[in-house]
């Protein structure tokens, strides 16, 4: 299955943006600047000043104590199709990007597929949506401390000021994210456990071409890549396109060592989620039992709040710590431990995609993996420790009420094909009411539940003697902003900064 054998050489890693290969786990604080280019020449000059500071995937040096010296800040950048156009790339170059990237995330037909309707409709988004100024680029800033983040943001704002109006921040769009205590997402579940590793970084994993352009993908083929006519790359910054089918076309590879990034600001109705679990506990048990609430919520997620997968620990959240990503569903072909409709069983069905054999299922799963780079926003509504240690409740029932603050996650994912990876997972696995032969079930966490133009959707939990089915699910997660972005290689950034369109 693996196509990239051995470690990618340092000079290649030095060309790939670090965001693609690292979640910067040691940098707890993040800020995202959403900017717009007002003037192509000024924007390119700005990019020329920003580019040298962009963090690559190069290995971190080993310090005196034999330990890796991790950088205290990290900076990365990605562009939308509008942004590439505004910085001066001609239409003939934009045409070589995938259609979904060219069109952007906020088109009505795309919104239908993604479930971005009603309260998640791009017309309702805080920024970047329909009728709002388009996002041209996102600057990702990570730092170890709040003070460090503030300093790094200040430095970037200075860069923007230097651009003399050529690059402006979208008003009200500045976003900050953090790595929450215990890595719990706002609903209270340990998150970010299942991450695919990339072949070659440093060793085995999902084929490199699933996440980085210029390498063999799951189908043993190079992913399609955007190109620039050789005449437009007068300084010969980019590599010639190696594709033998297109050698006569005299083009250079703009995509090599780059990737695509999907952004979604996902606001979570934490109180709504737990109040729903409470109502369901009352409905099925006659009383608001905290155990039952946690049991139900865990069935929806597919893991216990600690992150222990249900398939390894179906009855209680008591799995000894260890690798919580090392499991398959083959012993749970009926979904008795982890329901088919559970969030993690939809987003990565591993070895059981009904009705296929395990080899095919694993292969199909591999063709639809995403590298997630999410950060939380907003204050935690409650201490998630009460979910793993109910003694902290001191006998009270879990009763989580809203405090009026907004919270959720900034969801980012990296993939070589937005259509085949992110959109597929969203459409065919999460929002599909017939996934795995289910009836009227959608992803209980991120699904587009409670759509007025669809029949109600539920969460079905296989059980003896009969399955348990929740009441119709409300929508717990609302999309508040989004973008389809291209994250170029450092070489491509130099090309963009030095581009002369005339």
């Amino acid at each position: 299955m693996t196509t990239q054998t051995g470690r990618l050489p340092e000079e290649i890693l030095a060309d790939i943006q670090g965001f693609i290969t690292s979640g910067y786990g040691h940098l707890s604080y993040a800020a995202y600047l959403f900017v717009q280019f007002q003037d192509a020449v000024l924007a390119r000059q700005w990019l020329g000043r920003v580019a040298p500071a962009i963090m690559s995937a190069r290995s971190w040096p080993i310090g005196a104590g034999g330990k890796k010296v991790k950088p205290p800040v990290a900076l990365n950048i990605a562009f939308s199709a509008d942004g590439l156009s505004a910085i001066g790339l001609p239409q003939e170059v934009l045409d070589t990007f995938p259609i979904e990237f060219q069109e952007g995330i906020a088109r009505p037909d795309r919104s239908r597929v993604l479930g971005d309707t009603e309260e998640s409709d791009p017309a309702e988004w805080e920024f970047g949506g329909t009728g709002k100024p388009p996002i041209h680029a996102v600057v990702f800033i990570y730092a170890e401390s709040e003070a460090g983040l503030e300093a790094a943001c200040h430095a970037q704002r200075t860069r923007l000021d230097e651009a003399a109006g050529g690059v402006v921040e979208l008003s009200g769009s500045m976003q900050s994210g953090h790595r929450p205590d215990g890595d719990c997402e706002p609903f209270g579940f340990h998150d970010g456990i299942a991450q695919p590793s990339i072949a070659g970084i440093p060793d085995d994993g999902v084929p490199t071409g699933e996440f980085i352009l210029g390498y063999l993908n799951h189908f043993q083929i190079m992913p399609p890549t955007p190109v620039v006519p050789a005449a437009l790359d007068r300084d010969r910054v980019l590599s010639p396109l190696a594709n033998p089918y297109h050698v006569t076309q005299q083009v250079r590879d703009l995509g090599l060592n780059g990737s695509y990034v999907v952004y979604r600001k996902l606001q979570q109705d934490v109180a709504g989620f737990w109040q729903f679990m409470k109502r369901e506990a009352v409905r099925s048990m006659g009383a608001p039992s905290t155990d039952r609430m946690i049991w139900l919520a865990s069935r929806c997620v597919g893991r216990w709040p600690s992150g222990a997968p249900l398939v390894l620990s179906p009855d209680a959240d008591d799995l000894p710590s260890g690798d919580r990503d090392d499991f398959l569903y083959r012993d749970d072909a009926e979904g008795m431990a982890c329901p088919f409709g559970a969030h993690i069983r939809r987003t990565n069905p591993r070895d059981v995609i009904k009705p296929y054999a395990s080899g095919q299922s694993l292969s199909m799963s591999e063709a639809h993996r995403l590298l997630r780079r999410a950060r939380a926003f907003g204050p935690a509504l409650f201490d998630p420790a009460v979910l793993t240690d109910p003694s902290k409740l001191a006998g009270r029932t879990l009763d989580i009420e809203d405090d009026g603050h907004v919270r959720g996650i900034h969801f980012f994912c990296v993939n070589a094909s937005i259509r085949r990876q992110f959109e597929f997972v969203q459409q065919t696995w999460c929002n599909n009411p017939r996934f795995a032969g289910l009836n009227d079930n959608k992803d209980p966490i991120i699904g587009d539940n409670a759509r007025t133009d669809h029949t109600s959707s539920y969460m079905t939990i296989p059980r003896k003697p009969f399955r348990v089915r929740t009441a119709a699910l409300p929508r717990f997660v609302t999309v508040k902003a989004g973008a389809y972005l291209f994250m170029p290689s450092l070489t491509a950034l130099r090309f963009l900064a030095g581009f002369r369109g005339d």
Partner: protein
Amino acid sequence: MPLGLIVLAPIRPGEEGPLRDVLRPIGDDIKGRRLQDASARPHIDFTRSRSIHFARLAILDDPDRGPERKRLLYASAFDGDLDGHLTELVAITSGMDAIWGRCEGYAGLAGFGAFIRARVHEPEAFYIAFRNGTVERIQQSIALRRQAEPLLDAAAASPLATILPALSTGDPAWAGVVRRAFSTAGREIASAIEVVIRALPILADLPRAIVRCGFTNVSRGTLRIIASLDRYTLFRSVNRITRNHLPPPTSSYSSVDLDNRASTPVPPSFREDVVTQNQLTVVTAIGAGHADRVRAVLSAIDSYAKRLAPDGSLIGISTIHFVRWLVIDEGRRLMLVSDYDGSWEAYIDEFAELILSGLEAIWESSDGFPPGGARDLPAFKQFLRSHQVPSEIFFSAYPEETVLNILNDSALARACRDMAVDRVGDLLRQL
């Protein structure tokens, strides 16, 4: 067993536009946007049918008649016989002349049967997911599941004994008892015999195919299909002995157009991205002299589909309700007519994952097939998209059901009919 009908009727010059104007509102109506003045317009009220599984109407090019010429495709799958189907089609259509009258050779309602019969095209390969599934039976099992759902919701812990009678299908109690008596050993033996009897004609298929398509084509085509079946132990051994494997890829690059805007596929018809079921019509030009090669491959698929394929699975693909391949225009063109589940993208991915060498064998003789084969998935998808014809009308009798849902629902219906308490219990755990 459901039957299929495929009709190609040349449209009279100048009538393409008016015909589209008639068909589109009918298609929109099936999609749920009820028309205001439906009674005044020509209409085909497929929803009144009790025997049509799927039906579509599409307008295809007719290059043999001229560059501007078009033809009307009508494709359906139905229960009963062709006479009954045509009678029903006439009964549910108001304004027959406004639709069919735009085609050459249509001479009014009286001659409709003869008109259709003269334009029928027989598929080279025809797969039916549920060979014993009538519209009535499928809808009954859906209804039974719908009936069970609220019962289970209301009585989360009540014993099976109270639920089962509520689900019983109205047979007298003794009928269930009798069926149960035969439901174990006897049934298994009977079904084993049935499998053998169904498979046997494969021996006659082979010589027939050789006579039609030539020995070399048949042996080559059959081997290509068997190469697709490598994950089954029996076929894997055959493949190992005959060294029957896909040749290594010629290139690790995609031949897909660099310009994605220029190669933008036809816009998805019928919201094929968001509904449970979708349809696909693809017409490609077969390279000169290759028709028999294609026919041989298709006859191998046809034999497999008719003689060996279990309910709901064509060589492992479980998202197809009906699929037909036809060689039309005296061997010059190949047409795919498919009714499937899920999104277009997922469907093609599944094909590529499961029957790559079969896909290549079917389409490699067609103009525009990517040099890297179906393994060059971006280029293969572009090839299919650029030869896809959107439908004006697409109807399904059970539009919310996937093949997998039908398998589940009919298992429950069968268990209830047989009063197989344990089996019903197993199924209700997951419903």
